[in-house]
């Protein structure tokens, strides 16, 4: 019985991220539209889009290989697993021992690898340029992300997300400038990885500057639906990671009774909706930067996270 409850809690988390992912896209698009003084589509529009795309015919290029057809599912699967592993409303779920921060970074990198291959598969110019730019961004963002992981792991003494969150909830780490720097670097990396505005414009089509959209330009039908869903899941994953690492309050730590779970769910929803509102506000305040500025943008994230690691070494007595 206890095992069934534990499995149920884990299954709830897996379905929760699946259900919330399009909502995050919807909220941020709506807020963005309102900030630009447009009405914007309704908040649930991404659900309708995915539903519509799932029922449309998938058009394939003549020279598309099996890689082109399987890549969207691989991307979706890795992103879903990664998103379901990040603690959302509770820690110490059944599979939380697998929720290693480095494993999550690796899962996301696998998905990106598949998508970049698929972008080059058909052999169009846009797909190739998108894939090469995506790889450039990844090669700059991943060192920064790994340094963020190291700095957080040095403070917590573990790379397991559940253990980190429980340590940070109890507030025994004190006041750390390293955590602030790591959060700063993490937000920069998250913006770059999710193709948001200073780096890439998620609402663009047929522009020379697009990155993510250029890779998926050839996709249609159910493949496109799955890719869009994965993009939403990735955004939600970064939101949950931010909430779990830097504001882990309100999560269920001990017994999973109904009250605790409801409180955990409510605080989690509040946190991610707040982030989904803040993201478009930040996006509206800045202009998209040139491709040649990316190394400086992500380099500052790298510098901040490296500084965070260095500061930890100073305050540690050898």
């Amino acid at each position, binding site marked *: 019985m206890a095992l069934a409850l534990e499995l149920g809690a884990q299954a709830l988390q897996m379905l929760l991220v699946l259900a919330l992912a399009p909502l995050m896209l919807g909220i941020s698009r709506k807020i963005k539209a309102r900030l630009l003084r447009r009405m914007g589509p309704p908040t649930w529009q991404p659900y309708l889009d995915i539903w519509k795309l799932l029922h449309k015919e998938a058009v394939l290029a003549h020279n598309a290989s099996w890689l082109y057809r399987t890549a969207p599912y691989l991307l979706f699967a890795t992103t879903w697993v990664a998103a379901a592993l990040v603690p959302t409303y509770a820690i110490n779920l059944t599979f939380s021992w697998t929720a290693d921060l480095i494993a999550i970074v690796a899962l996301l990198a696998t998905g990106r690898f598949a998508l970049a291959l698929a972008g080059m598969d058909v052999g169009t110019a846009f797909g190739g340029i998108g894939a090469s730019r995506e790889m450039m961004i990844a090669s700059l963002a991943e060192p920064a992300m790994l340094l963020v992981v190291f700095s957080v792991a040095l403070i917590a003494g573990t790379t397991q997300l559940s253990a980190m969150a429980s340590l940070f909830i109890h507030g025994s780490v004190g*006041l*750390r400038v390293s955590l602030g720097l790591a959060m700063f670097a993490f937000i920069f990396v998250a913006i770059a990885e999710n193709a948001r505005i200073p780096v890439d414009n998620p609402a663009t089509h047929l522009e020379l500057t697009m990155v993510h959209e250029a890779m998926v330009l050839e996709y249609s039908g159910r493949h496109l639906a799955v890719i869009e869903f994965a993009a939403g899941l990735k955004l939600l994953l970064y939101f949950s990671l931010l909430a779990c690492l830097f504001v882990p309050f309100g999560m269920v730590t001990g017994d999973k009774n109904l009250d605790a779970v409801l409180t955990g769910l409510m605080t989690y929803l509040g946190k991610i909706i707040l982030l989904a509102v803040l993201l478009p506000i930040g996006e509206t305040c800045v202009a998209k930067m040139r491709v040649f500025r990316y190394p400086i943008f992500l380099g500052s994230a790298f510098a901040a996270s490296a500084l965070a690691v260095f500061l930890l070494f*100073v305050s540690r007595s050898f």
Partner: protein
Amino acid sequence: MHNIGFDVAHLLAGSMLALSFVLLYQDRITAVLNVFALQAIALSLSVAWQAYIQEAPHLLITAVIALVLKGFVIPTALHRIVRRLGIHRQIDEVIGAGPTMLFGLGLVALSILLVLPVGQNVSLLAREDLAFALAVILLGLLMMITRYNAVTQIIGFMSLENGLVLAATGAKGMPLVVEISVAFSVLIAFIVFGIFVFRIRERFDTVDVGALDQFRGERRDQT
């Protein structure tokens, strides 16, 4: 180890170091001036906190001097000068922001590696303050050598001086610290007058110090 006194000192000194990196990253003069003012405010908070935990009220004077002079007076004066010189344009740097920051990270690592073995038998707080101060000093030097513009070179010098004050206050029982701080402030006023010298040199139509090299007949490699 996790007492609040240490944590707050760590936070303030660490944010000073982070602001040094922001200074290196910025390439607009007005933004550089604003970040410098922020760093001075962080310095004065840090010194005030040292005054509180070391129970040394004379450090408060240093904090007030840092806050008023470097947090408000000098940035405002420099803003006016910049506006009068009409140089709201981009700063040209010797090397780009990316390599500069990598080099700066190397300098931070160097200063930490230097201070950690030296200060084995002093308190953790003093050792850490020394490491941060040395890093801020080195980053200020780096900023001075990577910029062509006279105003940002002065900012680099003053952020270096922020590091010196941080080092002086981090060491316990430094009675002459007020005098040292005042002396450095006078020095800064002197540097500010240096800008007027550059204003006189407006016949070059620039405050790019590269023009001086050309005037003296020294050739600089055109990058």
